[in-house]
């Protein structure tokens, strides 16, 4: 028996109002790696995550996690939303947000118990936001908030993580803390998917890349995928290569 894939996408197509967003995506992702999902604006990166998590109905296609359908995998999957999707005025504290990560483990009629709070404290410490636990979520900086949402995903003790643009609009220090934690998670055997916008550091951050532009352009080890030809195909000319370096600049 070979390794069971962490994520299997077969023949996935999604469209919004009869406009194609994703077309015939076929990919199998092995576990225990950090996977970057990259591609230009409107390439369907977030759509891919949403379809995989069952948030929108695909036209066709099958998705499985470790060989199991989504229905049986909810507990195993943690999700970190895009910053812009969060209502900063919501009357909720950092601690309450992180506690939400425990919800899949708490019976539907039960409240969180002492053990759940201990787990919350542990991961608040891990991301370095323990002293903020009683703050309202909107009082935090972007970087702090992103770390809090990562802590929430961590308390879920999932096997697969999805992060939607976790590094956009946050400070360098937070970015470093987050990537360090993600690498640690990977070393613990988790599989992490990160929608990523910025092409710099891509090779440094990710083990594998999933290059997307409505179709799957390429998937494989970062070092193999991250080449000019594939990127040009994905970004369709909106890409400038600075000669002599492996520097790539997206011009749109």
């Amino acid at each position: 028996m070979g390794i069971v894939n962490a994520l299997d996408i077969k023949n996935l197509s999604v469209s919004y109002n009869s406009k194609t967003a994703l077309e015939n995506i076929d990919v199998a992702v092995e576990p225990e790696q950090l996977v970057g999902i990259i591609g230009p604006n409107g390439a369907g990166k977030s759509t891919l995550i949403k379809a995989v998590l069952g948030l929108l109905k695909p036209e066709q296609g099958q998705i499985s996690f470790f060989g199991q359908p989504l229905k049986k995998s909810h507990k195993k999957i943690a999700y970190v939303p895009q910053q812009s999707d969060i209502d900063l005025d919501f009357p909720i504290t950092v601690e309450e947000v992180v506690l939400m990560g425990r919800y899949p483990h708490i019976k539907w009629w039960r409240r969180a118990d002492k053990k759940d709070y201990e787990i919350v404290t542990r991961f608040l410490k891990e991301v370095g936001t323990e002293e903020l636990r009683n703050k309202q979520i909107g009082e935090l900086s972007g970087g702090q908030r992103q770390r809090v949402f990562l802590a929430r995903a961590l308390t879920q003790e999932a096997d697969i993580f999805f992060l939607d643009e976790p590094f956009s609009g946050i400070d360098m220090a937070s970015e470093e803390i987050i990537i360090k934690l993600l690498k640690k998670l990977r070393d613990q055997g988790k599989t992490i998917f990160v929608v990523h916008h910025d092409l710099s550091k891509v090779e440094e951050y990710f083990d594998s890349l999933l290059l997307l532009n409505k179709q799957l352009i390429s998937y494989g080890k970062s070092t193999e995928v991250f080449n000019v030809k594939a990127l040009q195909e994905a970004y369709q000319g909106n890409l400038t290569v600075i000669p002599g370096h492996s520097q790539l600049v997206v011009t749109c």
Partner: protein
Amino acid sequence: MSEINYFIDALKSYQYLQNAMMAGVLVGIICGVIGCFIILRGMALMGDAISHAVLPGVVIAYILGFSFFIGAVVTGIITALGIGYITQNSRIKDDAAIGIMFTAAFALGIVLITAQRGTDVHLWHILFGNVLAVSKSDLWMTLGVGSFVLMIIFLFYKQFVLSSFDPIMAQAIGLPKKLIHYTLMLLLSLVTVVSLNTVGVILVVAMLITPGSTAYLLTDRLSVMLGLSAGFGVISSILGVYFSFIYDVATGASIVLVASCIFCLAFMFSPKRGVITQKIRKKIVNKKSNTQLIE
């Protein structure tokens, strides 16, 4: 002062006034609590829609002689489903779909009432409430339905909070999004029926949204917001019944006006977010920095 004494004496001696007061207090609590979730989910318009859509159900229930609650829940839910169906299957957006559906249901209710000439369904009372006609059995009904609504919210508090705050995560961990939405619509329909006597179909949305919004301006904690909201609902009801008795004006409207006044106060003077408080704070900060500059 003498007016208050007069009111208290009246309260002691008249059963109908006691009933009105009790009904007002209960409705204040129930609407205050469920209203917080309506606000946080951005569903104020939906709350308005469902409360109006209850009308034909109530009238049909009256004509055919079964419980108001069944009629109300049926037309409330049908309207909610209709709104969802229109948005999902056409290019019509949410707000327009809400507008189309609830006015249709409301108009149907009006037509049904006006077709029933000579009966004692009073259009005015359903629309604007008739709190002084609350009977003992109405009160028990209110208490029963209120407890049911609060119990559901208490039981599914986690689910309501998560799906309000982060609907994407809620769905990702497998919470039934639609079931939660329609449960809320069901609760809204029930709450509207309970509020029929007190504030009526048209103004019930104020009891749902105004106390909750007031509380929202005053706190950053949901648990506190729920408590404050219920509290403001109760205060509005008590003062509203009082003013309506003393000045002999419509009770429902007077309750709503009190709630609006409390909102106004919070809007201006909320310690953290009040419009005037912020201005004063800015002035103090400016003064401080000016004096520092001079020094």
